[in-house]
């Protein structure tokens, strides 16, 4: 059976490192991302006969081209196409954490949301409708308390189910408003005949172009 690759993403302070440790235990390997001095951690585990490789992405709030960490995280997901992207989300700080999650969904990543720190959210009296969240995002959501190693098995179960195609990630389609959408449509059409469109979703490229994403503009110029 083929090894499953998970990219582990999340905001700084979302408990991502704890989730990584829970998943991989001591089987970790620390190195650098190629060409840059950003630390890269990898680990392995097995779950119900599946061999799983976990790649820890840098902790980021967003996926723009403004910082090295963000570029590293984004390039890995876009270029290496991990089977599943697990985004660790702090349940007590949903608004901010979801900004990263929806950018992964916009990219068309196979996203699973690890809804961490459920205990903190509960202690604050937050009631989170996990099912509805999963439905609205079109992506599985696994509630967890990583600090107490709760939810790790459920997360692995979901990851395997997404990787094997049993569960499908629908994703979202954010509407950027009438005017922006009109320009996206124009650009999408031009891009669809470009060779880059085989590698990236044309809509995503169009959005990135409008965001004046330096990296993507360079990529298009190089074609």
């Amino acid at each position, binding site marked *: 059976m083929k090894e499953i690759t998970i990219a582990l993403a999340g905001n700084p302070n979302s408990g991502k490192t704890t989730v990584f440790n829970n998943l991989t235990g001591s089987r970790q390997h620390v190195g650098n991302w190629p060409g840059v001095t950003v630390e890269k951690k990898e680990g392995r585990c097995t779950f119900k006969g599946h061999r799983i490789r976990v790649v820890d992405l840098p902790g980021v709030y967003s996926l723009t081209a403004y910082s090295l960490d963000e570029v590293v995280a984004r390039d890995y997901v876009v270029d290496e196409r991990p089977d599943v992207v697990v985004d660790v989300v702090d349940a007590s700080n949903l608004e*901010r954490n979801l900004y990263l999650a*929806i950018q992964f969904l916009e990219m068309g990543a196979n996203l699973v949301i690890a809804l961490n720190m459920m205990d903190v959210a509960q202690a604050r*009296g937050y009631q989170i409708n996990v099912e509805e969240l999963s439905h609205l995002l079109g992506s599985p959501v696994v509630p967890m308390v990583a600090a107490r190693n709760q939810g790790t098995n459920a997360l692995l179960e979901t990851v395997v189910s997404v990787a094997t195609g049993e569960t499908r990630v629908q994703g979202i389609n954010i509407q950027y408003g009438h005017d922006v959408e009109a*320009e996206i449509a124009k650009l999408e059409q031009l891009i669809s005949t470009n060779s880059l469109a085989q590698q990236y979703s044309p809509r995503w490229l169009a959005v990135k172009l*409008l*965001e004046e994403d330096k990296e993507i503009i360079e990529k*298009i110029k190089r074609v």
Partner: protein
Amino acid sequence: MDSAEIINAKDKSLEHLRTIHGDDAETLIADARYGFISGLVKDILKKPATERVTATDRIDQLMLNRWLGIPLFLLILYGVFQFTFVVSTPLIDLINSGLGWLAERVPGIASGWLGSLLADGIIGGVGAVLSFIPVIFLLYVALSILEDTGYLARAAFVMDRLMHRIGLHGRSFVTLILGFGCSVPAIMSSRTIENPKDRLVTILVTPLMSCGARLPVYALLAAAFFTAFQGLVVFSMYAIGIIMAILLAWLFRSRLVPGESGHFVMELPPYRLPTITGVLAHVWERGWAFLSRAGTIIFCAVIVIWLLDYFNVLENIGRAIAPIFSTAGFGQWQPTVALIFGVLAKETVVGAFGTLFAGAEGVGGFGSVIGAELGWTPLVAFAFMVMILLYIPCVATLSTIKRETGSWKWTFFTIVYTLALGWIVATLIYQVGSLLL
């Protein structure tokens, strides 16, 4: 489709969107994402009723107000200096009378060169610096309270818009505010700024923020020359520092290292009541550096100054350089010497004045002697304070700049530009002031 055509079409689209919305597409897209999230969260998250309008929200409605935010920030800053001065003045007087008592005992213990070293050098110089402990510690108390309550994050937030105009962002302002305490940790805090150009410019202008070590110099001169307006004069030093930092950041960012600046989320942590232990720990962290400097670098500097003075060399050194500063009104050898030694640590300026003037009218009272001995008017004192604010940062700051930029070039650049800036602004103030007054 070929790449050039796609890029062309993109530029046209951006142009089009800019004309319709007045905002760039990036902002529109980010707004759409945030809109999506707030809509989503409203559907799936129920917060307890008490939290729906939190105290934080209510305070922020005022603090982050578009029009009131910056005036409130300045008002709070002004309040900090008023508090610092009103509370510290009686304490400083107390320490000074203690030092005066000590100095009177010196002739009974030692005479000749040793007596002079003890009275003028140690008690006059180091004692003068130590007498400002209350003002420094109280400033640190006020700054720690602002930081621990979460207000400093708001100050950065309200400045974010302005900072974007000059090509930086709010996080640079956090570094600048930390510079009120000490430039060294402030410059190190710039590591959180992701964009390398933003970070470099922030590092270059941070020394212009008035640090705690400069406060004793202001306190000494303000008490001597501006009795009624001490708080206001000192506040104006801080304001000039902020204005210069912003002005030069804009200049450097547009001329020296042009290019896009980074964007990121400005965090707004909830307001908290500061704990006494937390504040004290912060004050101690910052204050300890001041105390240990007084015992080491300033102690040594004061002894060197005393030695050079005792052997009549100091005056010649000062006189050789002093004419440079005559355009700013303080072209005498004593302030020149103070400026030279001030590069070691800014408090040394007080120590130097203490050593040079202590004999004239006992310890503590020497502030008032400066005016008579040097023939300074309040205008000259003000120009000199501005020079202290802007000229070459202390050696500890310079070595931090070297370490963080990894470049001698930028370190020397800082020395040259700050010296030129201090001289120009002090000269302008003195010349224009002389015409007006």
